[in-house]
Protein backbone atom coordinates (compact mmCIF):
# COMPACT_ATOMS: atom_id res chain seq x y z
CA UNK A 1 0.00 0.00 0.00
CA UNK A 2 2.63 2.41 1.11
CA UNK A 3 5.01 1.32 -1.65
CA UNK A 4 2.28 1.76 -4.21
CA UNK A 5 1.55 5.29 -3.08
CA UNK A 6 5.25 6.16 -3.23
CA UNK A 7 5.36 4.81 -6.77
CA UNK A 8 2.34 6.86 -7.78
CA UNK A 9 3.83 10.04 -6.32
CA UNK A 10 7.17 9.32 -7.99
CA UNK A 11 5.41 8.81 -11.32
CA UNK A 12 3.51 12.06 -11.01
CA UNK A 13 6.68 13.84 -10.03
CA UNK A 14 8.50 12.71 -13.13
CA UNK A 15 5.57 13.80 -15.30
CA UNK A 16 5.44 17.27 -13.78
CA UNK A 17 9.18 17.74 -13.75
CA UNK A 18 10.14 20.47 -16.23
CA UNK A 19 12.75 21.11 -17.47
CA UNK A 20 14.10 17.60 -17.89
CA UNK A 21 16.70 16.52 -15.39
CA UNK A 22 19.78 14.46 -16.17
CA UNK A 23 19.42 10.89 -14.94
CA UNK A 24 21.83 9.44 -12.35
CA UNK A 25 23.04 7.16 -15.17
CA UNK A 26 23.87 10.17 -17.36
CA UNK A 27 25.75 11.69 -14.42
CA UNK A 28 27.72 8.48 -13.84
CA UNK A 29 28.52 8.21 -17.56
CA UNK A 30 29.71 11.84 -17.75
CA UNK A 31 31.89 11.37 -14.65
CA UNK A 32 33.37 8.11 -15.95
CA UNK A 33 34.09 9.70 -19.34
CA UNK A 34 36.08 12.41 -17.55
CA UNK A 35 37.90 10.30 -14.95
CA UNK A 36 38.54 7.31 -17.21
CA UNK A 37 37.32 5.16 -14.32
CA UNK A 38 39.87 6.50 -11.81
CA UNK A 39 38.55 6.61 -8.22
CA UNK A 40 37.62 10.04 -6.84
CA UNK A 41 39.72 11.11 -3.88
CA UNK A 42 38.53 13.70 -1.37
CA UNK A 43 40.67 16.77 -0.77
CA UNK A 44 43.03 18.94 -2.85
CA UNK A 45 40.03 20.60 -4.53
CA UNK A 46 38.29 23.72 -3.19
CA UNK A 47 34.93 24.53 -4.79
CA UNK A 48 33.50 27.95 -4.04
CA UNK A 49 29.85 28.64 -4.81
CA UNK A 50 27.11 30.28 -2.75
CA UNK A 51 25.10 27.82 -0.64
CA UNK A 52 21.95 29.91 -1.15
CA UNK A 53 21.24 31.38 -4.58
CA UNK A 54 18.38 33.67 -5.59
CA UNK A 55 19.08 34.26 -9.29
CA UNK A 56 20.38 31.00 -10.66
CA UNK A 57 20.91 32.27 -14.23
CA UNK A 58 24.47 33.39 -13.48
CA UNK A 59 25.96 31.91 -10.33
CA UNK A 60 29.64 32.72 -9.70
CA UNK A 61 31.66 29.55 -9.17
CA UNK A 62 35.40 29.05 -8.69
CA UNK A 63 37.64 26.02 -8.27
CA UNK A 64 41.13 25.91 -6.78
CA UNK A 65 43.34 22.84 -6.61
CA UNK A 66 46.39 22.34 -4.40
CA UNK A 67 49.20 21.58 -6.86
CA UNK A 68 52.75 22.81 -7.52
CA UNK A 69 51.79 23.06 -11.25
CA UNK A 70 55.26 21.88 -12.29
CA UNK A 71 56.02 19.85 -15.41
CA UNK A 72 56.23 16.72 -13.23
CA UNK A 73 53.17 17.38 -11.07
CA UNK A 74 50.25 19.46 -12.31
CA UNK A 75 46.51 19.61 -12.80
CA UNK A 76 45.60 18.62 -16.35
CA UNK A 77 41.86 19.28 -16.27
CA UNK A 78 39.15 20.59 -13.98
CA UNK A 79 35.50 19.71 -14.64
CA UNK A 80 32.23 20.93 -13.17
CA UNK A 81 29.17 18.68 -12.99
CA UNK A 82 25.60 19.14 -11.83
CA UNK A 83 23.20 16.52 -10.56
CA UNK A 84 19.90 18.00 -11.66
CA UNK A 85 20.47 20.31 -14.63
CA UNK A 86 19.19 18.96 -17.98
CA UNK A 87 22.79 17.87 -18.74
CA UNK A 88 25.35 16.77 -16.13
CA UNK A 89 28.35 18.49 -17.74
CA UNK A 90 28.93 22.21 -17.13
CA UNK A 91 32.49 22.86 -18.33
CA UNK A 92 35.94 21.31 -18.62
CA UNK A 93 38.99 23.56 -18.13
CA UNK A 94 42.36 22.49 -19.52
CA UNK A 95 45.44 23.63 -17.58
CA UNK A 96 49.15 22.86 -17.57
CA UNK A 97 52.53 23.90 -16.11
CA UNK A 98 52.29 27.27 -17.93
CA UNK A 99 49.19 28.00 -15.84
CA UNK A 100 51.39 28.48 -12.78
CA UNK A 101 48.44 27.99 -10.45
CA UNK A 102 45.36 25.76 -10.56
CA UNK A 103 42.49 28.20 -10.24
CA UNK A 104 39.53 28.86 -12.55
CA UNK A 105 36.24 30.72 -12.26
CA UNK A 106 33.09 31.22 -14.31
CA UNK A 107 29.36 31.88 -13.99
CA UNK A 108 26.91 28.99 -14.32
CA UNK A 109 23.21 28.17 -14.48
CA UNK A 110 21.37 26.02 -11.95
CA UNK A 111 18.00 24.59 -12.98
CA UNK A 112 17.07 23.81 -9.38
CA UNK A 113 18.52 23.14 -5.92
CA UNK A 114 21.21 20.50 -6.27
CA UNK A 115 24.77 19.39 -5.63
CA UNK A 116 27.53 20.94 -7.74
CA UNK A 117 30.60 18.76 -8.15
CA UNK A 118 34.13 19.81 -9.12
CA UNK A 119 36.64 17.15 -10.21
CA UNK A 120 40.33 17.74 -10.87
CA UNK A 121 42.43 15.34 -12.92
CA UNK A 122 46.18 15.38 -12.29
CA UNK A 123 48.81 14.59 -14.91
CA UNK A 124 49.25 11.13 -13.33
CA UNK A 125 45.57 10.42 -14.00
CA UNK A 126 44.45 10.58 -10.36
CA UNK A 127 41.16 12.42 -9.70
CA UNK A 128 40.05 14.54 -6.76
CA UNK A 129 36.65 15.96 -5.97
CA UNK A 130 34.77 18.57 -3.95
CA UNK A 131 31.01 19.03 -3.77
CA UNK A 132 28.73 21.83 -2.56
CA UNK A 133 25.00 21.60 -2.06
CA UNK A 134 23.29 24.71 -3.41
CA UNK A 135 19.75 25.83 -2.60
CA UNK A 136 18.04 27.82 -5.35
CA UNK A 137 15.10 30.04 -4.45
CA UNK A 138 14.32 31.23 -8.02
CA UNK A 139 15.29 28.55 -10.55
CA UNK A 140 16.83 29.42 -13.95
CA UNK A 141 14.62 29.08 -17.03
CA UNK A 142 11.49 29.14 -14.85
CA UNK A 143 9.99 31.61 -17.35
CA UNK A 144 10.64 29.43 -20.41
Amino acid at each position, binding site marked *: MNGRRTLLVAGLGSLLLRPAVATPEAMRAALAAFTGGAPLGDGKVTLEIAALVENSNAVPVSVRVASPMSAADHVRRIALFTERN*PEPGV*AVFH*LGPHSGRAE*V*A*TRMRLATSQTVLAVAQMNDGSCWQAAVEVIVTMPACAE*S
Partner: protein
Amino acid sequence: MSQRALIHLPATVRRGEVILVRALVAHPMETGHRVDSGGQRLPRDIIRRVEARLDGELVFAADLHPAIAANPYLVFPLRVTGDGTLTVDWSGDRGFAHRERAEIVAT
Protein backbone atom coordinates in the same frame (compact mmCIF):
# COMPACT_ATOMS: atom_id res chain seq x y z
CA MET B 1 29.07 46.11 -34.36
CA SER B 2 29.84 47.03 -30.79
CA GLN B 3 32.65 45.26 -29.03
CA ARG B 4 31.89 41.58 -28.67
CA ALA B 5 34.63 40.40 -26.32
CA LEU B 6 36.95 41.63 -23.60
CA ILE B 7 40.23 40.35 -22.19
CA HIS B 8 41.18 41.89 -18.87
CA LEU B 9 44.73 41.72 -17.52
CA PRO B 10 46.16 43.16 -14.28
CA ALA B 11 47.39 46.76 -14.67
CA THR B 12 50.98 45.74 -13.98
CA VAL B 13 52.50 42.35 -14.65
CA ARG B 14 55.85 41.25 -13.27
CA ARG B 15 58.08 38.74 -15.00
CA GLY B 16 57.65 35.31 -13.41
CA GLU B 17 54.36 36.26 -11.80
CA VAL B 18 51.19 34.17 -12.09
CA ILE B 19 48.28 36.37 -13.19
CA LEU B 20 44.56 35.75 -13.55
CA VAL B 21 43.18 36.52 -17.02
CA ARG B 22 39.51 37.50 -17.25
CA ALA B 23 37.77 36.85 -20.56
CA LEU B 24 34.21 37.86 -21.39
CA VAL B 25 32.25 37.43 -24.62
CA ALA B 26 28.77 38.63 -25.61
CA HIS B 27 26.71 35.53 -26.44
CA PRO B 28 23.17 34.34 -25.50
CA MET B 29 24.20 30.71 -24.75
CA GLU B 30 20.78 29.38 -25.83
CA THR B 31 20.60 26.01 -24.08
CA GLY B 32 18.53 23.99 -26.55
CA HIS B 33 16.26 22.97 -23.67
CA ARG B 34 13.87 25.92 -23.83
CA VAL B 35 10.66 26.22 -25.86
CA ASP B 36 9.19 29.42 -27.34
CA SER B 37 5.62 30.66 -26.85
CA GLY B 38 4.47 28.46 -29.75
CA GLY B 39 5.83 25.32 -28.11
CA GLN B 40 8.75 25.04 -30.53
CA ARG B 41 12.07 24.00 -29.05
CA LEU B 42 14.65 26.76 -29.43
CA PRO B 43 17.71 25.20 -31.11
CA ARG B 44 20.93 25.10 -29.13
CA ASP B 45 23.27 28.02 -29.83
CA ILE B 46 26.21 27.99 -27.46
CA ILE B 47 29.94 28.63 -27.39
CA ARG B 48 31.52 25.20 -27.11
CA ARG B 49 35.24 25.92 -27.01
CA VAL B 50 37.51 28.67 -25.74
CA GLU B 51 41.26 28.59 -26.43
CA ALA B 52 43.92 30.98 -25.15
CA ARG B 53 47.36 31.16 -26.76
CA LEU B 54 50.46 33.01 -25.69
CA ASP B 55 52.57 33.80 -28.76
CA GLY B 56 50.86 30.93 -30.55
CA GLU B 57 51.28 28.33 -27.79
CA LEU B 58 48.11 26.94 -26.22
CA VAL B 59 48.09 27.95 -22.53
CA PHE B 60 44.44 27.38 -21.58
CA ALA B 61 41.29 25.85 -23.06
CA ALA B 62 37.73 25.29 -21.93
CA ASP B 63 34.89 23.11 -23.23
CA LEU B 64 31.56 24.72 -22.41
CA HIS B 65 28.09 23.19 -22.04
CA PRO B 66 24.66 24.88 -21.93
CA ALA B 67 24.95 25.26 -18.13
CA ILE B 68 27.42 28.12 -18.59
CA ALA B 69 25.62 31.45 -18.14
CA ALA B 70 24.91 33.83 -21.04
CA ASN B 71 27.86 36.07 -21.94
CA PRO B 72 30.42 33.47 -20.83
CA TYR B 73 32.91 34.81 -18.31
CA LEU B 74 36.08 32.84 -17.65
CA VAL B 75 38.94 33.44 -15.26
CA PHE B 76 42.13 31.45 -15.81
CA PRO B 77 45.71 31.56 -14.54
CA LEU B 78 48.81 32.29 -16.59
CA ARG B 79 52.49 32.36 -15.68
CA VAL B 80 54.10 35.38 -17.29
CA THR B 81 57.67 34.76 -18.44
CA GLY B 82 58.02 37.95 -20.46
CA ASP B 83 56.30 40.17 -22.99
CA GLY B 84 53.91 38.45 -25.32
CA THR B 85 50.65 38.48 -27.21
CA LEU B 86 47.70 36.66 -25.69
CA THR B 87 44.96 35.64 -28.11
CA VAL B 88 41.64 34.17 -27.06
CA ASP B 89 39.42 32.32 -29.54
CA TRP B 90 35.76 31.57 -28.89
CA SER B 91 33.97 29.12 -31.18
CA GLY B 92 30.62 27.38 -31.17
CA ASP B 93 27.28 26.54 -32.76
CA ARG B 94 26.12 28.17 -36.01
CA GLY B 95 29.72 28.79 -36.98
CA PHE B 96 30.35 31.28 -34.18
CA ALA B 97 33.98 32.38 -34.10
CA HIS B 98 35.58 35.39 -32.47
CA ARG B 99 39.18 36.30 -31.65
CA GLU B 100 40.46 38.92 -29.27
CA ARG B 101 44.09 39.96 -28.57
CA ALA B 102 45.81 41.50 -25.59
CA GLU B 103 49.44 42.54 -25.23
CA ILE B 104 51.25 41.46 -22.08
CA VAL B 105 53.99 43.89 -21.09
CA ALA B 106 56.05 42.55 -18.20
CA THR B 107 58.06 44.83 -15.93
